[in-house]
């Protein structure tokens, strides 16, 4: 049978974000996948070089609407390490609370979307209703539902009052009950088992070879979590476990995410109950000394890394954002081979793709039409050779 190219996107009912898939199919089976990810490219890294540290945090939050706290925390941690300032314990705990609430809302959101993609809209409605409890807590603490803007260099922006802590604690038991129900549903609900089991399987070796991170890697049995391996914030204090699963398919990724919500609930409860007293921020100097740092953070989708290079001014010379979705895309292209066309949405959704983080631009040489990668120093050299007066 001849191979057919099925083009999906950038505007498509099944897609929530602009992306273009070219799926080469032989009958119902997928042979190959080609991707175009650059519809969302905004040039955030370039913009970050032009703003000082105070103004760059709100910008980096808007890299992604779902994991906004991740980006600003990763950046703030890196700059604080370069400046050699230690944030107060209370600020560490507040950052952890917001980070785990963000993970909960992201995973509940994902569970709903995955259920919607297999036509199980009841679960979609349920998880999104329960997600509103998390959103309310975040809104009470920070004043906004999505972009919280809690971080500042040297601490957090606003303190938690005892009333806010009590209100947050009062919402937890109901949420725990609901999440336990979802754990049962994921394990025993026939609809989900039929559509998730054995779909998009990725063995441990493959997961390592394609460099997967986060729940995708943990579902293939790789015990890798930045929160445990390289503890930051208050993760070393709180009691929690890394969740892994050996299934390696969409079913395994669903189980990992649902159990991670339970672990997040434990961390949030611990941090709220043991919130230290004291200041919420320390004064930070205006300029950062010259230095380079790689700041790692476990975002809801996996390990997020910010490479930051400073040059002694109040701006960064370069910030490079390596998002978890970018690391996981290769594994999607491999998972899709030999699967059914009908399983595309759920396999793609299984890595919880976030395209606004991931959009990159490709350099194409005008004469040779050759696309490729060049180093940052090479880019600077080319720019300076073309604009000698602007050095």
């Amino acid at each position, binding site marked *: 049978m001849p191979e057919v190219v099925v083009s999906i996107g*950038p*505007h*498509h*009912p*099944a897609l*929530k*974000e*602009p992306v273009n898939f070219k799926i080469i199919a032989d009958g119902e089976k997928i042979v190959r996948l080609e991707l175009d990810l*650059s*519809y*969302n*490219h*905004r*040039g*955030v890294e*370039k*913009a970050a070089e032009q703003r000082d540290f105070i103004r760059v945090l*709100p*910008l980096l939050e*808007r*890299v*992604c*609407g*779902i994991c*906004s706290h991740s980006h600003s925390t990763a950046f703030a941690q890196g700059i604080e390490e370069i400046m050699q300032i230690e944030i107060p314990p209370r600020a560490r705990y507040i950052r952890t609370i917001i980070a785990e609430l963000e993970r909960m809302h992201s995973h509940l*959101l994902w569970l709903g979307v995955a259920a919607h993609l297999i036509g199980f809209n009841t679960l979609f*409605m349920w998880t*999104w*209703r329960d*997600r*509103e409890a998390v*959103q309310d807590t975040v809104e009470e603490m920070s004043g906004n*539902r*999505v*972009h919280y803007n809690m971080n500042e260099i040297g601490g957090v922006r606003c303190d938690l009052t005892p009333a806010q802590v009590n209100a947050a604690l009062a919402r937890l038991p109901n949420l725990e009950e609901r999440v336990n129900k979802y754990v049962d549903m994921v394990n025993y609900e026939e609809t989900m088992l039929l559509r998730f089991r054995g779909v998009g399987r990725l063995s441990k070796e493959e997961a390592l070879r394609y460099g997967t991170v986060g729940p995708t890697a943990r579902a293939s049995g790789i015990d890798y979590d930045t929160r445990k391996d390289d503890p930051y914030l208050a993760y070393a204090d709180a009691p929690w476990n890394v969740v892994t699963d050996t299934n390696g398919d969409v079913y395994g990724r669903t189980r990992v995410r649902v159990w991670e919500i339970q672990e997040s609930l434990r961390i949030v409860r611990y941090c709220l109950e043991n919130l230290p007293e004291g200041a919420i921020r320390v004064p930070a100097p205006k300029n950062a000394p010259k230095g380079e740092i790689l700041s790692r953070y476990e975002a809801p989708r996996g390990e997020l890394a910010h490479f930051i290079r400073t040059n002694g001014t109040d701006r960064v010379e370069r910030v490079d954002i390596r998002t978890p979705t970018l690391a996981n895309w290769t594994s999607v292209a491999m998972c899709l081979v030999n699967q059914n066309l009908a399983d595309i949405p759920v396999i793609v959704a299984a890595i919880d793709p*976030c395209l*606004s983080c991931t959009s990159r*631009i490709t350099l194409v040489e005008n004469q040779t039409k050759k696309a490729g990668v060049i180093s940052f120093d090479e880019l600077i050299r080319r720019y300076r050779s073309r604009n000698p007066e602007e050095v």
Partner: protein
Amino acid sequence: MAVTAAGLSQRLVNWARARSPWITVFNSGACNACDIEIIACLMPRFDVERFGILVKGSPRHADILIVTGHVTLKQASRLRRVWEQMPEPKYVIAMGACGASGGVFHGLYHMMDSVDKVIPIDVYVAGCPPRPDEIINAVVTCLNLLREDALHGGREWRKKAVPVTRTEEKTCGVIP
């Protein structure tokens, strides 16, 4: 004035259109925050279906286009094409600070800065991102605009109008 058959059917269509607007969402390069707030609108808590609002995948079925976010250069031609596919009368809502001016991304190298450089906008929603209640309010405002236009026989009357003051704006927002 006697009601003609054509007039009656047109009035019926206008009535039906304002009772059940169909919406399509176009992500023109947003950061997802506006998109998840739109999905939150569909959920049991905010539940826009009580206003008859349905979200549809195809622009050919839609009355209202919600554009989330600033427009990246690559998405501009796609946005224009999606808008051209919508049948008349069509309305456009630009979401958030990015839709109005580009927000924090204003002036970057891969940006069109605001949606109205690509397609005409009827309603702007403020916020980064707007709360679901504000999105619902924008759609309801858009419906009032739709009824107003139906009374005036099209949207042409708005183009000739002088800029409205704030009090006038308030009064034309509540026409049943």
